């Protein structure tokens, strides 16, 4: 039942909004993985980020893709956690963990060949600005699966359409720059830093109008 609802939600609501009202300019679409396991790592400005990244994968493969999200935020009440878990399909991580491995569900999903979405800034932050440092979670996940590809992605425009703390959606074309994947095998301990600099480099490829 929830699987059907999830499919309908993305087919009838999310994709029309994203492809018709919003509009995407995707650079290097062909780099995206055809199959999991893989992780898409992007800068984070808006709740729309997750929905846009999920819309890049064909609808027929919707069941393969899951965003990784903070349990304390998305599971804070019953209705929201039903929506987050069943419809969006998040994989919750506990930021303040009391025992147990907070990443266990993430590891399970990777073992099942899923494509995960992760925002290593840890927060949506200021619109159209990226945090100077990423959280190390991505490296800890990749360390366990050293040959899994991790795709750095730069998103622009969604912080203008629906920034943190705003309820009014205003359409702007969204730019998505997909970078070359990297793996823990090649990057090792420098991985988090390398992803950060790749996303920064992707951002520098574009030319964006001022937003002050």
């Amino acid at each position, binding site marked *: 039942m929830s699987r059907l609802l999830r499919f309908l939600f993305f087919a009838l609501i999310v994709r029309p909004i994203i492809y018709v009202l919003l*509009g995407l*300019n995707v650079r290097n679409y062909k780099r995206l993985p055809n199959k999991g396991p893989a992780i898409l790592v992007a800068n984070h400005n808006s709740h729309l980020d997750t929905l846009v990244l999920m819309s890049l994968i064909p609808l027929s493969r919707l069941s393969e893709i899951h965003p990784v999200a903070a349990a304390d935020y998305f599971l804070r009440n019953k209705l929201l956690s039903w929506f987050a878990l069943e419809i969006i399909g998040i994989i919750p991580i506990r930021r303040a963990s009391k025992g147990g491995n907070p990443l266990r569900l993430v590891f399970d999903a990777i073992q099942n060949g899923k494509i995960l979405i992760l925002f290593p800034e840890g927060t949506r932050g200021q*619109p159209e600005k990226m945090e100077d440092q990423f959280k190390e979670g991505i490296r800890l996940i990749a360390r366990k699966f050293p040959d899994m590809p991790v795709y750095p992605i730069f998103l622009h*425009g969604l912080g*203008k359409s629906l*920034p943190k703390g*705003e309820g*009014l959606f*205003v*359409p*702007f*074309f969204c730019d998505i720059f997909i970078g070359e994947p990297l793996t823990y095998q090649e990057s090792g301990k420098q991985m988090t830093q390398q992803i950060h600099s790749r996303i920064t480099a992707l951002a520098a490829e574009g*030319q964006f*109008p*001022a*937003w*002050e």
Partner: protein
Amino acid sequence: MELAIPQTVAVTLGTLFTVLVFSHLIAFVLKKANPKKDYSELFQRINSWWVIIIIFAVAVVMERTAAIIFLGFVSFLALKEFFSLIPTRRADRRVLFWAYLSVPLQFYWVYDYWYGMFIIFIPVWIFLFLPLRMLVIGTTDGFLKAAGTIHWGLMITVFNLSHAAYFLSLPAIDNPQAGGVGLLLFLVILTQFNDVAQYVWGKSLGKTKIVPKSSPGKTWAGFLGGVVTTGAAAYFIAPYLTPLEGGMGAIGGAIIAVAGFIGDVTVSAIKRDLGVKDSSSFIPGHGGILDRVDSLTFSAPVFFHFIFYLYYGPTLAS
């Protein structure tokens, strides 16, 4: 839904598809002849033309409402592209939201045959309302620039383009063949034809640049060749699609060519100012919506008022 369309309109659409089939065949032949050359952009361009012409034909054939909604949607896409290109202020998100809302309203006036509102809504009511909305927000840094750019975008992409749709709402005149649909087709086909004619003339014998700063590729030969060729084509097409007779058809075509050229170079000047080559990558092989409708943003209102003056004006008195 009325599927009955004037015969001349059906013939015109049929001709368009024939031209497209031939272009596709020529592209295949070219590819076979020079297998080493990369023709992927040409094919992308032709494929996009297929999509554009099929959607346009379906919208025109269906009925007036569908055609107006389709043109309103094009207008929305062009406006969105414009707002995504220009520098904007965070404070103006709500102003931009209202600016977007003017699109369905403007096309509703078209649908409602309300000429008086259609012709002043953006230049007067929206022009007065948006600054008010900005005042309420209260940020004065960059106020004039924001008010100016936002309204300029609305004039180009909404007000000007909606003139193409208003052909569908003009009262019937002595144009038994094709009615408003005929005028709309005439405008759109000749505007696009002029783009191609200018390009071909400019490539084959263009030397002297006409507007070197904004469009270094445009030449006097291209411009004049386009005007003459489009005028000549219009002379032959006008009797089938419009009430224009004899030389007036050619003049109508020349007006579309001149206005289309100005629209084209004006949008180029804006893109140069903003430092971009294409307005987006929305239509594969073409660039963005604005790149495709740049000429139309100027030719639509100019041709509309040419027709309006000849058959409905110059005064409103019955």
